[in-house]
């Protein structure tokens, strides 16, 4: 369920980055203040364990398919939520950088969907109350199956929300939800069973691990975090929506003023006139309508500006413009190819 860069708009990606980054900063400061440097190698090595374990598959009896450990919940149980968030974030970063699972812009979303939800929702709100202070085998089993399943459901749901809010995919909300949730119900059950198995195994072999989970860092008010989070989200959303607004403004407007003139005054290109060029310029970010089909009447009314321009949005672009776009695209490709070829000839190859 790695969210991918290609399906994400910068506004959504940036907002999720802000949320995840502030939670990471908060967790780091909590760890620093707890000052237990035994946990430093433990976090690193357990993250490496999860990384390796994610690639060992087992066959699910009776189905012919295979599953593996996801690892968010078990890290939260073994390390406590703050350290676990850092560990999960590090695993996701390695995956994003080396295997292109997700992507760099989507990393914020992924840390949120898989890390924050496991560590700050599934573990403290579901697992801990169910497992209790002195867990036994049955408690561990039920707690981890329920926590992992619910955690993955929430995670999958936020993938849907992020995708729909980005507006790059056309998949409507309802069908996407119907697609994602059942798949992740299965994945969540597998995750829960595997986590439970490992915890019971550890409980048998190393019972001392379950005496004091996350020593001494449990009771501090969460209010500063919540306020910080809200502020970060507001600021990011505010800044980015400034870019995303439907009218030309800021940077875009200035650029249009400076450079736009010459092109607008070149009517011989003939195929399409000034309006179209202007219109293209106005769409700095994709408009965040969930469906393009509904004309943006409320938006135009709200901004109170240039409804006729708005109404002429993407659906009726003239064929001529698109055609020269197509032609130009091909030419660009050729140019890029030639450029790469020339550069390659110039750089001495290292064998």
């Amino acid at each position, binding site marked *: 369920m*790695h969210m991918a860069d290609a399906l994400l708009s910068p506004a959504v990606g940036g907002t999720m980055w802000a949320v995840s980054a502030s939670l990471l900063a908060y967790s780091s400061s909590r760890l620093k203040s707890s000052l237990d440097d035994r946990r430093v190698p433990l976090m690193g*090595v*357990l993250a490496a364990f999860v990384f390796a374990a994610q690639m060992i598959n087992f066959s699910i009896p009776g189905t012919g398919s295979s599953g593996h450990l996801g690892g968010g919940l078990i890290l939260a149980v073994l390390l406590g939520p703050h350290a676990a968030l*850092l560990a999960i974030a590090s695993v996701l970063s390695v995956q994003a950088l080396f295997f292109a699972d997700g992507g760099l812009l989507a990393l914020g979303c992924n840390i949120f969907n898989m890390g924050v939800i496991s560590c700050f929702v599934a573990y403290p709100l579901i697992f801990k109350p169910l497992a209790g202070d002195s867990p036994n085998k049955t408690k561990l089993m039920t707690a981890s199956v329920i926590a992992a399943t619910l955690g993955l459901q929430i995670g999958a749901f936020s993938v849907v929300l992020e995708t729909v809010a980005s507006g790059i995919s056309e*998949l409507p909300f309802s069908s996407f939800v119907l697609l994602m949730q059942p798949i992740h119900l299965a994945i969540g059950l597998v995750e829960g069973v595997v986590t439970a198995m490992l915890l019971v195994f550890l409980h048998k072999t190393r019972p001392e691990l379950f005496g004091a989970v996350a020593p001494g860092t449990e009771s501090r008010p969460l209010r500063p975090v919540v306020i910080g989070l809200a502020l970060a989200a507001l600021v990011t959303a505010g800044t980015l929506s400034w870019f995303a607004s439907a009218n030309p403004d800021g940077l875009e407007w200035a650029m249009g003023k400076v*450079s736009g003139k010459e092109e607008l005054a070149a009517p011989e290109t003939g195929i399409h006139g000034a309006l179209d060029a202007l219109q293209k310029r106005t769409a700095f970010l994709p408009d965040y309508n969930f469906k393009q089909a509904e004309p943006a009447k409320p938006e135009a009314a709200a901004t109170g500006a240039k409804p006729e321009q708005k109404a002429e949005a993407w659906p009726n672009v003239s064929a001529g413009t698109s055609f020269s776009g197509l032609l130009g695209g091909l030419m*660009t490709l050729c140019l890029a190819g030639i450029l790469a070829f020339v550069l390659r000839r110039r750089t001495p190859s290292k064998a």
Partner: protein
Amino acid sequence: MGLDTALHEIRRLDDLAALDTPLHRLDARAKVLVTLFFLVSMLSLGRYEVSRLLPFAAFPLILAVQGGVPLSLLLRRAALALPFVVFVGIFNPLIDRTVHLTLGPLSITGGMLSFLSIVLRSLLAVSTGLVLVAVTGFDQICRALGRLGMPTALLVQLQFLYRYLFVLADEALRMLHARTQRCAPDRHPCLREYRSLLGNLLLRTLDRAGRIHQAMLCRGFDGQMPELRPTTRFGPAEWRFCALWGLFLVAVRILNLPQQLGDLPLYLGGKAGGLFP
């Protein structure tokens, strides 16, 4: 992806990052910042944009050529990342059937355009990320992020993970090999085998953490990993790199270069045919 292929892929990128080209010698912060700017400006294009995405390919391509990254590797990796994106994007052509362009009998709908756009975005984003790792190296990226303000705890965590990833993956591979040799067929372990396999790996992991901690104390760990390479500074070369690519990206983002390029032959043709004075 199997564990051994995953390890192999990481080592492959690590080898590339160990090359010594002018691009490799640049301060990692410059490369990280320009890459982020690339992603934001590329991904902020409208959902029907296809041709305008193409000039962006210059960034990963030129960096790959300058940094000695084989293009075949990039393409193969970028293709591996496609399935999820295609899975979500494949519905676009079915849902959005507004015709944008007719080429003879073939009519191109908005859904096709946006699907193509999603695929292109994915290829560009993935290959750029990989090029960044291949010309910078994981450790340098982490340090750059640390110098850009990432908390130390997270920096140390990333460095620890990267150091012990190979150790633990090797350990897991040895266990898997041992299993294959004892009980023959090379298929996935069943649930019971899996439990003891993973459980034992976990126990060894916990023991290893204890040993590492003692070794760290012996060597005077002060909360930070020692630097292995000399620290680079943000000099003229870095500024030049940022300025040049920054200008290029702004230009490509604001102007519709392919459109103008495509208009040119049409315009010239029109002129030759006497359509325009």
